[in-house]
């Protein structure tokens, strides 16, 4: 006997009820699919950003950065001497450093406080390395050049009229901490205000401007091709401990690889995803109860029918399968609709995020396992919810059922 055809016909008989039950399931599937798809997309986007940076880099920062990116108030900051130590460590191909500080930025008659990054631009090799982890493209103007003194790169927000009354283009002037600079280039959008409003300038210029002697905020090293960054990282750590005359447990700096940074990001993302998806699952559960209710009603209404089937020799197993097929079909149809609409929603969020926040980080990620998983899961919800009603149908007494009015 063809269970599926029978189930389909039975559902058509009660169109309205089947429709409402399916809506209950598809809303839940939709929410779960949209959240998972966006979560996966975000993870993917972050992964891509880290891939762009390259897995052969090491990042060294002083510990206890109380002021976040402020960096200037550390008791024992990293200095140019430490950069030299890292550079001469065996297995390190090249190394550079950068500074980061809050500065006063004046555009037109607006004064604001944003970050300024000081990068090494007078040494082509170091500049090249910097641009490997500082991957934002220049959309207007040019890169910093080795003999630039008073040239800066500005973030994307300086071109936005909704952020600055007086927008900037390459060649314009900008005042930082009272000193005039020329905008050499404008960087593409990163997606967060801190970076998109930052002013990037030669390291020496930033140091002169703020009276920083030889401290650096971060050292970036690239390992020799073929070397394991984790091993070189340990070696760098030993050399630095040695140079700074510290024991292992007095270490006041942190060497991290892109993988380390990625791992800490991922954990937060996974927790957020699990919480949100978990809450969305509640509605799937409620939808499942809806299926159960519909199936119980269906069993009740068809008591006589069941009696007749039994009377002409249908086995309990057969009856059970008829009803299970019906509830599985409810789940499946809800799953298909929910999947389509859920993916549509996440795509919509992606487009809205790109338009509103200028970020490509929030993407809808549609994987095969998500599609197949959502469909399988919706069938499973349908069958689980239908199990008790189907058993009730199967165990009905034939004689009693026939007498039912």
């Amino acid at each position, binding site marked *: 006997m063809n269970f599926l055809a029978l189930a389909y016909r039975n559902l058509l008989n009660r169109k309205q009820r089947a429709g409402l039950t399916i809506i209950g399931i598809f809303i839940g599937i939709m929410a779960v699919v949209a959240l998972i798809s966006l979560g996966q997309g975000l993870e993917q986007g972050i992964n891509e950003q880290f891939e762009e940076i390259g897995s052969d880099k090491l990042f060294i920062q002083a510990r206890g950065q109380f002021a976040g990116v402020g960096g200037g108030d550390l008791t024992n900051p990293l200095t140019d001497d430490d950069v030299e130590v890292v550079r001469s460590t065996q297995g390190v191909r090249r190394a550079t450093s950068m500074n980061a500080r809050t500065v006063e930025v004046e555009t037109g008659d607006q*004064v604001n406080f944003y970050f300024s990054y000081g990068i090494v631009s007078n040494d082509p090799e170091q500049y090249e390395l910097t641009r490997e982890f500082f991957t934002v493209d220049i959309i207007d103007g040019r890169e910093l050049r080795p003999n630039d003194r008073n040239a800066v790169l500005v973030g994307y927000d300086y071109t936005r009229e909704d952020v600055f009354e007086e927008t900037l283009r390459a060649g314009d002037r900008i005042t930082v901490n009272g000193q005039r600079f020329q905008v050499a280039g404008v960087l593409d959008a990163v997606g967060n205000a801190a970076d998109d409003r930052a002013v990037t300038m030669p390291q020496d210029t930033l140091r002169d401007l703020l009276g920083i002697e030889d401290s650096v905020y971060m050292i970036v090293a690239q390992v020799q091709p073929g070397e394991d960054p984790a091993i070189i990282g340990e070696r760098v750590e030993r050399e630095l401990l040695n140079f700074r005359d510290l024991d292992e447990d007095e270490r006041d700096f942190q060497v991290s690889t892109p993988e380390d940074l990625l791992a800490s990001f991922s954990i937060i993302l996974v927790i957020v995803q699990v919480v949100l998806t978990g809450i969305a699952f509640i509605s799937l559960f409620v939808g499942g109860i809806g299926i159960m209710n519909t199936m*119980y009603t269906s069993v009740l209404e068809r008591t006589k029918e069941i009696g007749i089937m039994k009377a002409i020799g249908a086995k309990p197993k057969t009856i059970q399968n008829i009803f299970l097929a019906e509830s599985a079909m409810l789940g499946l149809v809800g799953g298909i609709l929910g999947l389509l609409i859920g993916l549509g929603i996440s795509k919509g969020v992606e487009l809205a995020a790109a338009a509103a926040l200028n970020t490509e980080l929030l993407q809808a990620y549609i994987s095969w396992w998500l599609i197949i998983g959502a469909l399988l899961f919706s069938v499973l919800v349908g069958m689980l919810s239908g199990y008790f009603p189907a058993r009730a149908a199967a165990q009905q007494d034939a004689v009693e059922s026939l007498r039912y009015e």
Partner: protein
Amino acid sequence: MLADSFAYALKSLRQRKLRSWLTVIGIFIGISAVVALISLGQGLQDAVALQLSGLGADRITVQPRSAGFGPPGLGSDINITDEDLEVVRRARYVKVAAARVLQPVTVGHNNEEQSAFLTSVPEDTEGRALIFETIQAKIAEGRQLRPNDRGKVVLGINIAEDWKESTPDIRAGQRILIEDESFEVVGVMQKGGLPATDEAIIINEQNAFDLLNISNQYQFIVAKATSPENVDLAKEAIAKDLRKSRDVDEREEDFTVETSNDILETVNTILGAVTAVLVGIAAISLIVGGIGIMNTMYTSVVERRKEIGIMKSIGATNGQVLTLFLIEAGMLGLVGGLIGVALGAGLSRLVEIVAAQQLGPSILQASTPLWLVLGALTFGFVVGVLSGILPARQAARMQPVEALSK
């Protein structure tokens, strides 16, 4: 008449016990999730408000503007000077003001080193009183810092105890190294003041200047308004006077003036947004539950076609039939709401207890105010009635002859 309708609705729900219960379950799951999430969000807001009220509703903080997050004044190259303090002191509606140094330092103890915040207290009596009142410093051991103490400090509990296992805790009377200079610890503060206090070293102002080799530069000013009602006026007055003395106009301000209410508002905005997202997702299940009610009511209308036909043929109006079914649907929602509120409140309490056990006394607390209880009950009822409208209308519009003939 209405009482009869209720009795009738209850009876017909009882006749289909299983279906009614399943429908109610669909509603109460959603309501309990929403109630639990709002309870926790509300509890979190209350806890934050309580912590901040320690700051005092009449307190105002002045600090340099900075692009970053973190403790006041750090990460910025702008300093606050005695001149600024004087301006703040003289501003209208300001009762008393004091400036503080706040700098990260390295502390040495038993050949181990760690980082801490050095925070100064002013030398003048009024300023001292204000600062000690603001940080709510209670001494656990030893004594509080006295005005003439030199080379002496009081430690936050985490600085005294947060060392390695092999390193004994610091007791009052012992000496420690701060930036390689030796200091006597005269007291250790209790836990539970402002969080920052636990990580702080308290030192007299002049002592801090000497140690750090600076003078006349602070990281922030704490001011107290003449009364809690005047705090916003005081804030305005301070900002205006500072703009004048620092010769900047409003858009070039290189400092920020904040009251504890401002901070509270920021925190509440963030917490509110997080709660809204979570509750929004949880509310989806309520829609699904509502659809369950609709389904049950449609089924009920179909099953009772004959009954409706009889009622109408003996004179029941459309309105009466409509009310009957709406009451039935509303009752499903209301019962779901009742169970949901009870479960949700219990659930949030459970989270609070588990969090307290796992994390120690935490700010994750449950708070189920009366408005939440009443709101959830009303909401459950409304969801029921709304979901019942279409089926009830179908029932009300039935033609008695047709209904009876089926």
